């Protein structure tokens, strides 16, 4: 079965007055139908830009797609017309954002905002749209949807707003839901409610989820496969069990080791992430890497399968079996 979404060799750069910010560099990713792919990495590593590129929500200029294709149902989203994109956004691919407080329009009711998506993408009467909105509010477990549908965002708590965002995103039954840090702004007890809801909706509707997060606990609990990004590149791609049991890339290992465990001193990754406009030549992780080789400084490692498995891939010269040319 062909994948639902196929990102091939995507590069998204931002041309500013002073320099070129290379946010996403030659990224390859696929998302299968019904799976949750987690995109993990630290702030500024290109997670969000990758997702926004797939929605074609990058402002151009200053943004520019330097290379690549994003195939969705046989259509290259990077070449699609604006009208084609409008038909896809909020309909076949939809997105929920980190801040439910700022992503809802404060002057429209919850119902208006959900019905907007229905009116744009489906041929429904006002009455039918309202019924559908009530249904979807019920589906995301909002108590007493009949009264909530007439409320404004400020009357809802953070967790409720995020449920409304999810309701807006799934009302047209998208094939792909992009969730960009959906619970970072929420409290711990609310976080698991929202993630359980997303997981349950995924199982019910067979949609795929691209889950962007920096929380490795969330990844362990909700993802099927994981892509670890570092300064604009995917450095490791693996099924979730393999990523946690045998992380390959030194950065992935460093991340997992730097999580608080009982008592013992935490292992750290020295230094900090390079600025995406001033990347080192070669592997961008080498200045912080404890296992760097000579060639890491000059050549960028490709993302390749390791351990003879096709499922786990990493971009690191440590796993290179063929001799240096």
């Amino acid at each position: 079965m062909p994948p639902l979404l196929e990102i091939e060799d995507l590069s998204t750069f931002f041309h500013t007055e002073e320099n070129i910010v290379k946010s996403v560099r030659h990224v390859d990713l696929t998302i299968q139908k019904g799976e949750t792919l987690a995109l993990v990495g630290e702030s500024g590593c290109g997670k969000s830009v990758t997702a926004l590129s797939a929605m074609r929500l990058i402002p151009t200029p200053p943004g520019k797609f330097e290379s690549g294709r994003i195939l969705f149902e046989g259509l290259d989203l990077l070449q699609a017309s604006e009208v084609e994109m409008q038909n896809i956004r909020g309909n076949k691919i939809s997105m929920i954002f980190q801040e439910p407080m700022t992503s809802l329009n404060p002057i429209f009711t919850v119902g208006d905002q959900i019905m907007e998506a229905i009116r744009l993408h489906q041929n429904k009467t006002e009455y039918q749209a309202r019924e559908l909105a009530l249904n979807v509010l019920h589906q995301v477990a909002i108590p007493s949807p009949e009264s909530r549908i007439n409320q404004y965002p400020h009357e809802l708590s953070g967790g409720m707003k995020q449920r409304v965002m999810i309701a807006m995103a799934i009302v047209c039954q998208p094939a792909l839901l992009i969730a960009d840090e959906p619970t970072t702004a929420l409290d711990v007890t609310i976080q698991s409610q929202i993630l359980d809801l997303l997981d349950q909706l995924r199982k019910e509707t067979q949609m795929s989820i691209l889950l962007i997060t920096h929380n490795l606990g969330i990844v362990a609990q909700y993802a099927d496969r994981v892509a670890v990004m570092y300064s604009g590149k995917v450095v490791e791609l693996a099924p979730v069990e393999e990523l946690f049991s045998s992380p390959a890339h030194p950065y992935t290992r460093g991340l997992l080791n730097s999580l608080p465990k009982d008592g013992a001193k935490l292992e750290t990754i020295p230094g900090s992430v390079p600025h995406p406009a001033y990347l080192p030549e070669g592997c961008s992780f080498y200045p912080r890497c404890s296992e760097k080789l000579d060639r890491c400084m000059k050549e960028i490692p490709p993302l390749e399968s390791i351990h003879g498995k096709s499922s786990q891939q990493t971009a690191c010269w440590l796993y290179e079996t063929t001799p240096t040319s």
Partner: protein
Amino acid sequence: MKNLLTVQSLKKYFPLYGGLLSKVIGQVKAVDNVSFDIHEGEILGLVGESGCGKTTLGRMSLRLMQPTSGNVYFEKADIFKLNRREMASLRPKMQIIFQDPYSSLNPRFTVEQIIGEALSVHFKINGKELREKVESLMEKVGLSSMYLNRYPHEFSGGQRQRIGIARALALGPRYIVCDEPVSALDVSIQAQIINLLQTLQQEENLSMLFISHDLNVVKHLSQRTAVMYLGKIVELAHTEQINKNSAHPYTQALLASKPSLDPTSRKRPQPLSGDVPSPLNPPSGCHFHPRCPQVMKRCKNEIPRTIQLEEGHQVHCHLYDE
């Protein structure tokens, strides 16, 4: 162990204005009758969700905010009864590290000015002596003293938090309130800062109130943990007891909703239903009762009292009140 700081029945009620004449129409009980103490050389973790009063409590323990009632004793002095001069002489012993390393440093000051300001105000140190002192502080927190004349915008988040730590350490404090010091930082940087705080705490035998919503960080750092819900401490115990034998249903729910790092075990207990209620209008009786899976009849009407379960383990819950 000797207590460095003792907090007794501390309350902070914020008045709520409304109506035509902006009269007081209610109050927000941000901190409601909280008591605890911090031993010398101890890190006390304070966990809770947003709006539960963690930060208000931390600031009152430094007298950065006046309480509605209650007392805070620091080395036996009742800090709210001290006059200006007496308080000023106590200030160097109590410091704070803030959450946001971006907004808590003055953008127009150089690193030297930021770290050195308190030294020149309190200890009248100037010139070369001040510079040497600042340089040694910077080295202590892992910053090169080359950066002495740089401004905050030239640093990354982790480095800025190091500047904030150096500033807090400058006067040789005994007690530091760490208000979510690593929440704004990336995972790999978090570990650096946590290690730094731990090393410094051990070297100088500091006492800390470590405020966080991240249970893993608190578990890693603190000897004892206090759990707060809507203005009240619902459970206080040794960190080990909290993690192994937590008594309060809210603590248990918090621990259960923490995502586990093991992808092979995805058995998740039923998470808490409902939202955190608004502190404007908290539920009657035990504030947690509308969300509590083990709610009883009396929880709706009676405010639970402090129950001592065992040495150093206290809980506010009717389940343990025979």
